């Protein structure tokens, strides 16, 4: 408002003085709205033109009118454009047409019609909304019978109404997906769906009948290309317990795959992305699984050289613990002057078996209360100590 008042003063100062050159900017753009005018007001004020006057036509209409009435045929164009911005004023131009052609820059109609009432007034309350918005469409304020306001509110006012509101047009709307519309669509689509087999109602049953899981990812986004290079990755997951493997084969398979096997969940995960197509990656993954399976059943000659460091779990047979225990027992027996007992007899005896179990439990499962106490008991029995 300050700008308007200031330029009103400037206008009053200018009076019927030397006519300013017509501003091509202010003329047709005057109708565009306050935003456009505010941007240009700065320029106009600097140039000395009172285009700022157009900011508040209500304030300055009387001034303009008086100027035009007393003006010469060579009135600057901005005066005439100011008339066209106010609808009420344009009527006055009719009875006094200028000589020559009626110069009408801009799209103001000569005989402006009143706008037709919006369609919302003719809408019934129980109409079929899915016929108004059958597909995704922009927001049309005359077709949506809702009093929606959107945008930053005017000072001490409310957000702007829906007519000519760009914010409402910009945002994607879901007017075509109301619940009755969705139900209609789904009813039509239901024929193409199939039922899940009722026998597979839990994850365990799925695991039991269909052990292999194949994971693929699809990507949907808007952009210059619909392709996504990450879409070709295929992940294959299978539990080793569901494969037909014996002890040696399972250990060999675990050694072959290395990091791809998870000990806790007993799941082998194979991720392939070396081929350009998803189907090729899937085929390659299945090929890998096949090869691993069959190779793990083979026993090579060099596998007999497997040493203690390569073992996955502790095996008591042929270990140092066995040798030491047998050695100790033999020496005890020799010192007691018992007849020669053979190693097989010692191994078959109860105490040695207890000792073996406790040692393997300690090594494989780690140190727990029960394991340690079991070890203590077995050692006491072995060495015949009464504590």
């Amino acid at each position, binding site marked *: 408002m300050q700008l308007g008042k200031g330029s009103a003063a400037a206008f009053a100062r200018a009076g019927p003085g030397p006519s300013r050159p017509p501003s091509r900017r202010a003329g047709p753009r005057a109708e565009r709205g306050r935003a456009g005018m505010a941007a240009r007001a700065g320029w106009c004020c600097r140039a000395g033109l009172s285009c700022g006057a157009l900011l508040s036509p209500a304030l300055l209409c009387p001034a303009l009118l008086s100027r035009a009435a007393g003006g010469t045929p060579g009135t600057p164009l901005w005066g005439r454009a100011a008339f066209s911005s106010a609808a009420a004023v344009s009527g006055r131009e009719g009875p006094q047409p200028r000589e020559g052609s009626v110069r009408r820059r801009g799209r103001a109609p000569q005989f402006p019609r009143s706008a037709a009432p919006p369609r919302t007034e003719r809408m019934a309350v129980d109409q079929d909304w899915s016929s108004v918005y059958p597909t995704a469409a922009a927001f049309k304020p005359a077709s949506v019978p809702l009093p929606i306001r959107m945008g930053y509110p005017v000072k001490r006012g409310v957000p702007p109404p829906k007519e000519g509101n760009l914010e409402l047009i910009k945002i994607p709307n879901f007017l*075509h997906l109301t619940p009755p519309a969705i139900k209609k669509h789904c009813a039509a689509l239901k024929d193409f*769906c199939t039922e*899940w*087999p009722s026998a597979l109602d839990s994850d365990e049953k799925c695991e039991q009948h269909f052990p292999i899981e194949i*994971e693929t*990812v699809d990507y949907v986004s808007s952009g210059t290309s619909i392709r996504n290079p990450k879409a070709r990755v295929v992940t294959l997951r299978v539990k080793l317990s569901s494969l037909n493997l014996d002890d040696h084969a399972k250990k060999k398979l675990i050694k072959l795959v290395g990091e791809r096997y998870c000990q806790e969940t007993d799941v082998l995960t194979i991720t392939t992305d070396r081929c350009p197509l998803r189907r090729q990656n899937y085929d390659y993954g299945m090929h890998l699984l*096949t090869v691993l399976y*069959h190779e793990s059943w083979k026993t090579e000659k060099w596998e007999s050289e497997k040493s203690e460091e390569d073992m996955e779990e502790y095996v008591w047979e042929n270990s140092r613990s066995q040798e030491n225990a047998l050695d100790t027992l033999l020496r005890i027996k020799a010192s007691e002057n018992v007849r020669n007992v053979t190693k097989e007899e010692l191994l078959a005896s109860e105490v040695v078996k207890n000792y073996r179990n406790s040692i393997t439990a300690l090594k494989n499962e780690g140190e727990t209360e029960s394991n340690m106490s079991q070890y203590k008991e077995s050692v006491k029995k072995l060495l015949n100590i009464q504590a």
Partner: protein
Amino acid sequence: MQKQYLLPSSNLMGARLAGSHGDTQEPKTNPLVSISDEPETLYKRLSILVKGHDKAVLDSYEYFAVLAAKELGISVEKVDKPPKTIERFTLLKSVHIYKKHRVQYEMRTHYMCLELKYLTGSTAAVYLEYVQRNLPEGVAMEVKKTKIEKIPEHIQKPVWDTLPQVEETEVKS
């Protein structure tokens, strides 16, 4: 004239055929539906992650997707809303010099994750096409499908049992 229709079967073999109907009273033959003989693929889980810049749009989309799943008879496991990520960067405000004056931009990405359980291939195709066609502009989607399969024939038994006994040739190294 006898009407031929597929009986709904609860065992696995019968349900493998695509397009089997449950109607025994009035088998409605939709002319657009074609039933093929190949076995149905089974999806244990379908995980749909939707990303967008506007939370309100994602909320509306979530309502739409959940309602569509319910109407089509798909069980929704859970609807998760991971926290948003904000990517910020600082640029120079001016084209030339004025290093002390910068402008900062940020991009906010909101997420919504929908997990569906136990879908057949046809149902998954129908649902995904419906939901993807109605994806709003400016929203991206990632669909993670977990397909379950039987162990193929060639992995049932080791092949060395079936191969004929071949004389081993010495490998000279």
